[in-house]
């Protein structure tokens, strides 16, 4: 989950990272009660990158200018997102600008401190200019000094930069972050440092143990579409493609392998979901059964999906209830089909049944499930239960083809 700039700066201020005086503007008229001095800069609070290029950053010297600029920014979508908040901030005379970050490096299984004596880095050629320190053991300020010295800093500037890095690390651990970045960290002519812009990415698995973060996430979920959420909260635990075959599985590797098989068999994979752990959008604890039900709902709601391929093998939690969920979905089709014929609302497509389900079940734990599913009365093609994975994939691909543009 990525925070907005004004939220990042609130956190920075609280933990003691120097930030400029600023004020949150919810409506252009708030600028009449501005508590900071002109000239100011007004910044659109959106998640998308390249906000300045898109016109989301404007300078103002008077209240009238500021209100006009804010009106402009409030009505300017950036990467499809309209800001709910604009940040008004003092201006700062920077002599130098640095880049600082703390990031979790999964290759070494440790947090890494990053620093560069340039801001706005060209990522392609950053290698030589970017310095890093791996936080091998429990953090202690000497790791931050190591970074500042590697960056070539000395004396008091070395100490004030390393003290900012210390606080970034404190935030990183306190809030379970994947990334905290200051870009740029401005250095004044008198060697004072100031975080002019910052980025914070919260690890999605830890959100639920921080009440403040859980609240932020819930707010984002309630206000945005799933694709936007995907962009803001980080990836779903799944893959979003635009083909016709939706995939549900248990475990990333298994879902990926199924996706590959579908593609290799000439099919087009659509949204693929891993049901092994909670979705980002789940605000309360979920069970496997719940996630299957949610996953099926997401795929049914997706208009491009024509076939749903479920791949379960071995043992999954709550086998009986899981089979019940599948049975209910398939039978609901039946009921819905009838009810929709009666209360047709004019949309011809809605009279059609839901996407057919190809369910691959391998392993003796599913013996009872297979028998039970075989007894269900379903519309033809609504449910196919297969044991062999290659066969299941072939069936899904076959079912997807003749039904093109069905929905």
């Amino acid at each position, binding site marked *: 989950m990525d925070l907005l700039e004004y939220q990042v700066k609130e956190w920075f201020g609280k933990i003691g990272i120097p930030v400029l005086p600023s004020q949150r503007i919810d409506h252009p008229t708030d600028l009449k009660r501005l508590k900071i001095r002109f000239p100011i800069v007004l910044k659109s609070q959106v998640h998308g990158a390249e906000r300045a290029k898109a016109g989301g950053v404007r300078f103002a010297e008077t209240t009238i200018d500021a209100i006009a600029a804010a009106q402009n920014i409030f009505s300017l979508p950036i990467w499809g997102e309209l800001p709910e908040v604009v940040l008004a901030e003092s201006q700062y005379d920077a002599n130098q600008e640095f880049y600082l970050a703390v*990031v*979790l*490096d*999964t*290759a070494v*299984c*440790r*947090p*890494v401190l*990053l620093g560069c004596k340039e801001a706005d880095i060209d*990522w392609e050629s*950053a*290698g030589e200019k*970017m310095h*890093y320190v791996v936080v*091998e*053991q*429990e953090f202690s300020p000497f790791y931050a000094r190591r970074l500042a010295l590697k960056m070539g800093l000395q004396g008091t500037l070395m100490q004030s930069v390393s003290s900012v890095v210390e606080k970034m690390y404190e935030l990183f651990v306190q809030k*379970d972050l*994947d*990334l905290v970045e200051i870009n740029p960290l401005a250095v004044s002519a008198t060697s004072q440092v100031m975080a002019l812009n910052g980025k914070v990415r919260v*690890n999605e*698995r*830890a959100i*639920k*143990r921080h009440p403040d973060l859980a609240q932020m996430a819930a707010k984002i979920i309630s206000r945005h579409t799933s694709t936007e959420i995907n962009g803001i909260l980080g*990836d779903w635990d799944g*893959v979003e*493609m635009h083909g016709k075959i939706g995939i549900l599985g*248990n*475990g*990333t*590797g*298994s879902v*990926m*392998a199924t996706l*590959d*098989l*579908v*593609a*290799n068999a000439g099919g087009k994979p659509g949204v*693929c979901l891993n049901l*092994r*752990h*909670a979705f980002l959008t789940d605000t309360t604890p979920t*069970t*496997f059964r719940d996630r299957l039900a949610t996953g099926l709902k997401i795929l049914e709601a997706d208009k491009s999906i024509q076939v749903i391929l479920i*791949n379960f*093998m*071995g*043992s999954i*939690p*709550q*086998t009986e209830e899981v089979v019940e969920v599948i049975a209910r979905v398939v039978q609901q089709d039946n009921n819905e089909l009838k009810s929709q014929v009666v209360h047709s609302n004019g949309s011809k497509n809605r009279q059609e049944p839901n996407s057919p389900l190809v369910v691959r079940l*391998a*392993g*003796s*734990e599913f013996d009872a499930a297979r028998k039970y599913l075989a007894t269900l009365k379903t519309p033809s093609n609504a449910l196919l239960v297969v044991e062999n*994975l*290659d066969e299941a994939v072939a069936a899904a691909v076959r079912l997807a083809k003749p039904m093109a543009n069905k929905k």
Partner: protein
Amino acid sequence: MNLKPESKVLIQGFCEFISGTHVAQMTAYGTNLVAGVNPGCGGQELHGLPVFDLVEEVIEQFGAIDTTIICVDPYDVLDAALEAIASHIRQIIIITAGVPPLDMVQLLRKAEACETLVVGPNSPGIIVPGKILLGTQPSEFYTPGAVGIVSRSSTLTYEIAYELTKAGLGQSISVSIGSDAIVGSSFLQWLQILDEDETTQAIVLVGQPGGGSEEAAARYIAEAIDKPVIAYIAGRQAPPGKSWRQTGTLATFIGRDPNFGTAQSKLAALKEAQVPVAERPSQIPELLRKEIN
């Protein structure tokens, strides 16, 4: 690694990642499962196991424990593992998925200092077919034999075992190191164990996008592994963005390939190391036969 059938095993927690069926399966397989630990439930019995509130109570009653299988809620994994380490358990298998990565960083620092092997999190564990089952791998897909499997996936691990079994190729050891971004034991450690294991004649390496462990494994195989290795990488057709999630967008800074974390990068590394790569799970047996013969 102590994988002897008589070694003593404990289960910590009984959340959704483990079921009575799993426990019964382990017991039926001959795993010496002595007890469960579930705070607040001491004195009860669950799935045929006596349940205790603390690990130290189990040790008091049954003596030193070799391996613990952790299935507590994700936010309690660190505590459970630290409790196990404090009780001198030196092999920890974490089945639970969804553990916050910084908890894992803290755990791994401690585990390294105490020379404790951590497998997982988000791993179905280890099976030595016919001998011992430590985790939730469904034993029915396995038969004893000479192929070692090391994987980052959960279900895909036994998907591949199933293909081998169907093709008449038994397995020596199968381990999933866990599909999370940050896990304890590495491909390298397990390749070495399998290379030294006398029963193992060939190795199947199962990878997926994210991180750089398959690349490191490929280099290690070229340098140090004498036994034949076959690889399978899931997710070739998945959009590449997926992999960034596990690496932080800043990984390139520290001198890494911009392709870092993609299935393509992994395939290239394996090709470079001359490791044959299967197109799909069902192709693995035929590739293996070519290498063994």
